[in-house]
């Protein structure tokens, strides 16, 4: 599973937020995590983005907290759905994959950043993440 690549951490070292995570969950560093419950994240999937995992978490390592970057520039993979224009807000669209936002996505809390460069289908490009 491809993960986000840090280009630049903004704010105060990426403004990490600490979330709860199930001990049984494995999360790779750079994974786009999904906000699934009260201050709780799960592995990457379509939905609301909680941030970019700042560290690896091994399944059943006893850890139930994980820090996630919320402010920075990251290389992220566009989905196969459509090209993304520069400056356009993006949403999570599958595991560690993004797509262009649609009307109404902002009110649903799905937009977590915008493209810093145009990205073709299945291409990786820089995204300004701010959650």
């Amino acid at each position: 599973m491809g993960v986000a690549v840090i280009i630049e951490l903004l704010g105060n070292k990426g403004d990490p937020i600490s979330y709860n995570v199930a001990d049984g969950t494995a999360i790779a560093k750079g994974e786009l995590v999904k906000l699934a419950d009260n201050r709780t994240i799960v592995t990457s999937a379509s939905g609301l983005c909680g941030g970019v995992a700042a560290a690896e978490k091994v399944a059943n390592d006893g850890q139930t907290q994980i820090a996630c970057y919320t402010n920075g520039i990251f290389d992220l993979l566009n989905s196969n759905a459509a090209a993304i224009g520069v400056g356009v807000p993006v949403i999570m669209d599958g595991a560690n994959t993004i797509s262009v936002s649609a009307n109404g996505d902002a009110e649903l809390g799905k937009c977590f950043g915008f493209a810093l460069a145009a990205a073709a289908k299945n291409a990786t490009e820089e995204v300004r993440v701010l959650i």
Partner: protein
Amino acid sequence: MGNEAIIVALMGNGGDPIEYVVSDATAVPKGTILKLNDNQTVTLSAADADICAGIAAHEKVANDGATKIACYTNGIFKLKDAGAGFTVGLPVTIGGANLVKQVAAGEAEGGTIMGFALATAGAGIVEEVRVLIGKRY
């Protein structure tokens, strides 16, 4: 005024405070949700559809001679729901005096979104909200 925000975590550079103009006659308790009501000028939040400028970083006593106030714009705060409750992950706006509510359709374009819920809150309940003023939607 009551129901002021409680700081959980200041993010960015000490909560990324912005200094605004405020009327000398206005009393502002620390933690008050302030609304932008004129050119870089704030007053107390009062109603749904107010545009949030930030959260008062310090108290201002009425008629103390001060006409500036710093407001946090980046952090995690405990805020009170306005009455209908809000759901984890969904954006929130001002819903009344020191109250927040879940965003309604079409509000993103109005510049009223001030952050999103980090936890689900029942009606009138205080919960953690990620406040980030100035984010693009």
